[in-house]
């Protein structure tokens, strides 16, 4: 045994040196075993200095929850949802819409009673995709719920609370509708995005390609959308506008971006709260009403997004931790 060979089991030599060492060691079974004990001893002795930095661990922990949450939504029967995750880098863009039409609606409740519906959910901070048997794909944004079933007429109905992008394979034999309480959106072989979180004041339907009809709950057709158009339904005023939209801004969330089009800081923070499961508060509530448009990549930490927001909007913020360890962000 050569004493200087200790370097090889403490990983202090080059790969080439170690290759030579272990090849030689293999010839002598007694030495081979004895060195294994030494390797283990070295491991035990070095445990005391086995310390990574808190920030390194925290990053691994964040990464861990992301992966875990992503893996979670793989538990549905005949339809296989996969969850995608995104990271890093930030881009900013600005968009505006041009108003074309205005419609006024009366209040009505849902007409659709579903038979044997399947339910899907994308949790805080995750995006889920639901694949239908015919190859159609539905993307579910963070904190959204979708249940799919058939109503009495045999129409496939997707009840949505949240935001989803539908990429439906054209199918003459199937009638497909999205039901968002106030409205129904009837598909005619299309890709379209529906944003209808219960807490949002506006339901947005944007058409990417194909045709969709927007219906009142009683089935009366309000409008047919053309590709590149967005229908904004104001739940309180019960009005419907149709405007042109940059589709990149509508579908950006699917590609891992936060997209805010003419949103108040209040609305922006609600979305960040959903994604990161943090509370965001305002020191000065006047700021809530400030309007911004931006397109930000969903980064792995809420801090980097806040940094980006700070950079693009000039807001100041502080991240605080409450007694349970939950993070809270104060916008100043």
């Amino acid at each position, binding site marked *: 045994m050569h*004493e*200087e*060979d*200790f*370097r090889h089991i403490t*990983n*202090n030599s080059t*790969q080439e040196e*170690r*290759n030579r060492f*272990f*090849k030689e*060691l*293999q010839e002598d079974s007694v030495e*081979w075993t004895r*060195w*294994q*004990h*030494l*390797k*283990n*001893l*070295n*491991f*035990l*002795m*070095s*445990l*005391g*200095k*086995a*310390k*990574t930095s808190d920030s390194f*661990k925290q990053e*691994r*922990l964040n*990464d*861990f*929850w992301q*992966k*875990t949450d992503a*893996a979670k939504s793989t538990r549905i029967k005949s339809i296989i949802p996969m969850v995608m995750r995104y990271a890093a880098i930030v881009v900013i863009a600005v968009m505006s819409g041009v108003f074309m039409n205005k419609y006024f609606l009366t209040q009505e409740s849902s007409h659709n009673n579903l038979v044997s519906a399947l339910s899907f959910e994308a949790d805080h901070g995750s995006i889920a995709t639901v694949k239908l048997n015919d190859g159609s794909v539905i993307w579910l944004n963070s904190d959204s719920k979708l249940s799919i079933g058939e109503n009495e007429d045999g129409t496939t109905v997707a009840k949505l609370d949240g935001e989803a992008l539908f990429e439906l394979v054209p199918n003459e034999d199937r009638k497909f509708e999205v039901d968002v309480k106030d409205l129904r959106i009837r598909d005619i072989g299309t890709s379209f995005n529906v944003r209808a979180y219960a807490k949002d004041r506006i339901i947005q339907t944007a058409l990417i390609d194909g045709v969709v009809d927007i219906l009142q709950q009683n089935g009366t057709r309000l409008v047919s959308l053309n590709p590149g158009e967005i229908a904004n339904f104001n739940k309180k005023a019960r009005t419907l506008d149709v405007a042109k939209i940059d589709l990149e801004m509508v579908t950006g969330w699917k590609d891992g971006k936060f997209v805010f089009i003419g949103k108040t800081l209040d609305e922006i923070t609600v979305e960040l709260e959903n994604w990161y499961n943090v509370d965001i508060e305002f020191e000065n509530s006047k700021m809530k009403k400030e309007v911004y448009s931006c397109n930000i990549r969903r980064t792995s930490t809420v801090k980097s997004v806040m940094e980006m927001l700070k950079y693009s909007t000039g807001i100041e913020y502080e991240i605080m931790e409450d007694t*349970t*360890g939950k993070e809270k962000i104060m916008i100043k």
Partner: protein
Amino acid sequence: MFDIELIQKGNRKEFEKVYLEFFDVLYHLCLQYLQNEKVAEELVQDAFMKLWIKRADLKAETNLRNLLYTMTKHRCLNYLRDEQTALQHAGNLRHIEMQFNYEALNRLGNEMIEFKELQDIIQQAIDKLPPEQREVFMMSRDEELKYREIAERLDISVKTVEARMSKALNYLRVELKDYLHIAVVLSVLQ
């Protein structure tokens, strides 16, 4: 130490305590035997993920320390086995080292026993080392100095440092042999 009932109910805060408590040692275990940071990280994450997914199967008396250690160790062994095979087929000599690491890791026990007296036993063994060996050993372990740095600091040759380290470790190996194959002892050496 950890509230298993809370973890079973899906309390993330409690699980994070477990994660932060054991991450370092598990990561170190992987790193020592796999020599690959990326893989080490992956395997540790995978072990924690399995624990989280199977949290409902935990029992109040489950020793999370042992469980996580065993799960991580098995992942390392599987990786080393696959890596060894792949390298051997590729004609890469490194496969012998992977085989060596596999066998060494396999010799470590399946339990991580935490008994405080072992800390004293190890310290006593270190105290019994001749002063010049102890000096080199402590500099290497506690100050994480490379042999070259130790040699410079003590104004001796690298060969001498290696010789002293070698003697010290050999002595400790004999002195602690009863514990080596029984268990890996975590937190004890800190």
